[in-house]
């Protein structure tokens, strides 16, 4: 192994290796920043270009992209509330409010540093865990995933503070929306109103772009002025302060990284679920959960750490078992095959050097992308003091073109605007968007796990409470649901029983 690591390092420090790595990082940052297109598209576009390259250099190129995409995506999430990709959407919740408060530098610094550290932790785990990962993943069966999804929703609803009930309502409506389309369990198509477009369900990227980018642009168009209400603060807000915040909130960082690595390793879940669950988990351990959604830097650190660490995690099943953990990994699997590398247990034995080249590239790209981001951050922040009427039409046009480019389907553009208007109405009437979005993402997982669990237990629903991890998650969910009532009771202990009576 040491030999392979040294060999990978020697590739990294050759001019060609370094050049391909830098190229990958730059492409990754650009694809990350442009809304709607992400790492999957970047790898798919670079795949034919890598044909004929030395496999080590190809891994440098791909590793560079993987490490940089999420860092690029976090920039637009923070500055204009427009996630570069779906996994960056969770960063909007607190990153953008920080930018509005003139603390974009703090958010960018925190996002960049947590991405790097999360990515590195993911890589370390990837190296360390391959031999035992299979048994850890197997501890989580359908009942655990069902409870995990419900717990995530409950935790997020609590984070909406005074809007707890409407948070739950938005979550329920998000779940209903997630049921639209083909149902893998029953084998039929539901709630599509006869539209072929909805057969695959509500596409996430257009929906998320609508909920965040378009909604926010409508809100800015209504309010006028600038994004940042504190222009002076914008100029001096410390990027390095954000970097240090990652060390101050090291538990959030570590937790996000572990969640990202673990979720990344489970095929079919991916970075979006990882970052949203990490956001919910960050709120759980925070000393000030009520400030989440209003500009809490922990709400940036958790999702960004998870977002980047999931790359290391999703490489585990991709490399070790040949099962891609996400769409990005599915395309990457194609890259491996293109270079004559058969993913699976034999890959590590036969091509250990190439695997470590990829690992080195992934680690280095996390660091390089962060350094570049921190350098350009000071100029990027200026976007928050530009008159919104300059920004609004440009952002709407770019976002919708990005949404169209994803599948070259104008239906995505229409859906995105519909979600944009829906998001604005939700703001107006006090419904938190965050729970709807999370439910939309977790709905499919929750329903599938629910049916799988009942099938496993021959219809006996006690399966959800008879397994240790599942029961623990259920108890945490109950605690989340009871928290607002208990908090209200503690605030006003005398009047509450009377009112209830």
């Amino acid at each position, binding site marked *: 192994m040491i030999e392979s690591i040294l060999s990978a390092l020697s590739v990294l420090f050759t001019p060609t290796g370094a050049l391909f790595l830098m190229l990958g990082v730059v492409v990754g940052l650009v694809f990350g920043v442009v809304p709607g297109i992400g790492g999957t598209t970047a790898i798919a576009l670079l795949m034919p270009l890598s044909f004929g390259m030395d496999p080590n250099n190809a891994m440098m190129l791909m590793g560079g992209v993987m490490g940089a995409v999420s860092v690029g995506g976090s920039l637009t999430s923070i500055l204009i509330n427009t996630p570069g990709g779906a996994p960056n959407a969770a960063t909007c919740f607190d990153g953008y409010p920080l930018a509005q408060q003139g603390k974009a530098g703090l958010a960018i610094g925190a996002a960049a540093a947590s991405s790097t550290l999360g990515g590195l932790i993911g890589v370390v785990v990837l190296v360390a865990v391959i031999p035992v990962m299979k048994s850890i993943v197997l501890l989580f069966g359908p009942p655990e995933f069902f409870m995990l999804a419900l717990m995530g929703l409950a935790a997020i609803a609590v984070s909406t503070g005074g809007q707890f009930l409407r948070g739950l309502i938005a979550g329920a409506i998000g779940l209903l929306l997630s049921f639209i389309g083909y149902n893998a369990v029953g084998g039929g198509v539901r*709630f599509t109103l006869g539209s072929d477009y909805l057969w695959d369900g509500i596409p996430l990227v257009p929906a998320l772009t609508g909920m965040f980018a378009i909604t926010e642009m409508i809100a800015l168009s209504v309010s006028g002025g600038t994004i940042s209400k504190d222009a002076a603060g914008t100029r001096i807000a410390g990027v390095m302060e954000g970097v240090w915040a990652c060390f101050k909130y090291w538990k959030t960082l570590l937790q996000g990284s572990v969640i990202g690595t673990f979720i990344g390793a489970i095929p079919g879940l991916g970075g979006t679920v990882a970052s949203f669950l990490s956001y919910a988990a960050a709120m759980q351990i925070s000393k000030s959960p009520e400030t989440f959604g209003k500009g809490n830097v922990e709400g940036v650190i958790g999702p960004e750490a998870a977002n980047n660490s999931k790359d290391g995690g999703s490489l585990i099943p991709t490399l070790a078992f040949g099962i891609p953990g996400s769409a990005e990994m599915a395309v990457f699997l194609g890259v491996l095959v293109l270079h004559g590398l058969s993913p699976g247990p034999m890959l590590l034995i036969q091509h250990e050097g190439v695997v470590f080249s990829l690992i080195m590239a992934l680690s280095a790209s996390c660091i390089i992308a962060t350094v570049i981001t921190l350098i350009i951050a000071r100029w990027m922040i200026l976007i928050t003091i530009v008159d919104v009427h300059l920004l609004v039409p440009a952002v709407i046009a770019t976002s919708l073109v990005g949404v169209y480019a994803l599948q070259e389907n104008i239906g995505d553009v229409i859906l995105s605007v519909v979600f944009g208007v829906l998001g604005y109405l939700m703001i107006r009437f006090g419904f938190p968007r965050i729970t709807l979005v999370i439910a939309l993402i977790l709905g499919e997982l929750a329903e599938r796990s629910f049916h799988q669990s009942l099938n496993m237990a021959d219809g006996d629903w006690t399966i959800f409470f008879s397994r240790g991890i599942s029961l623990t998650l259920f108890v945490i969910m109950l605690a989340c649901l009871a928290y607002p009532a208990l908090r209200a009771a503690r605030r006003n202990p005398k009047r509450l029983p009377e009112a209830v009576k």
Partner: protein
Amino acid sequence: MTHASRLRRFGPPLIVLMIGVVFLLWAQIYPRNTGTVPTLVAILTIALGLLDLAGQSDTGFGRAVAKLVGRAAQEDEPEKAGWRVILLSVLWPLGYVGATIYAGFLLVTPLYIFLYMWTYGGKSLLASAVSATVTTVSIWLTFEVLFRYPLYPGVLFGGYL
């Protein structure tokens, strides 16, 4: 309580109830495996909607619900922005997409940006024209030239819905 504020308070929970009922009835036409979870979630939505509706009332129970699970803070807030501004802000992107469906991104995008900035944003003719041109060229260079994604041409120019 004015008619408008009553509408703002009770309108959203009533819409939630309606969504729940529609999905509940709709789910019944599907086989058991397909309809079970949507039915459960629809029932949950209706229950939460009823709770929200109760929480909006000024009865003792309503106040207790509001205290326990929170009441939306928007009620009786003075309108900061006029309805005309809100309506226009919503209609601009809708109009942009509507026009794009017919005439495509490359034709509609510069027009949209120019008209928005000039008429709604109150910017000068020159600034609006420059911004419209720069943004459209950037979009074209990024998507069509660099990434080779063809931009939607619009129904009038061979695009399909």
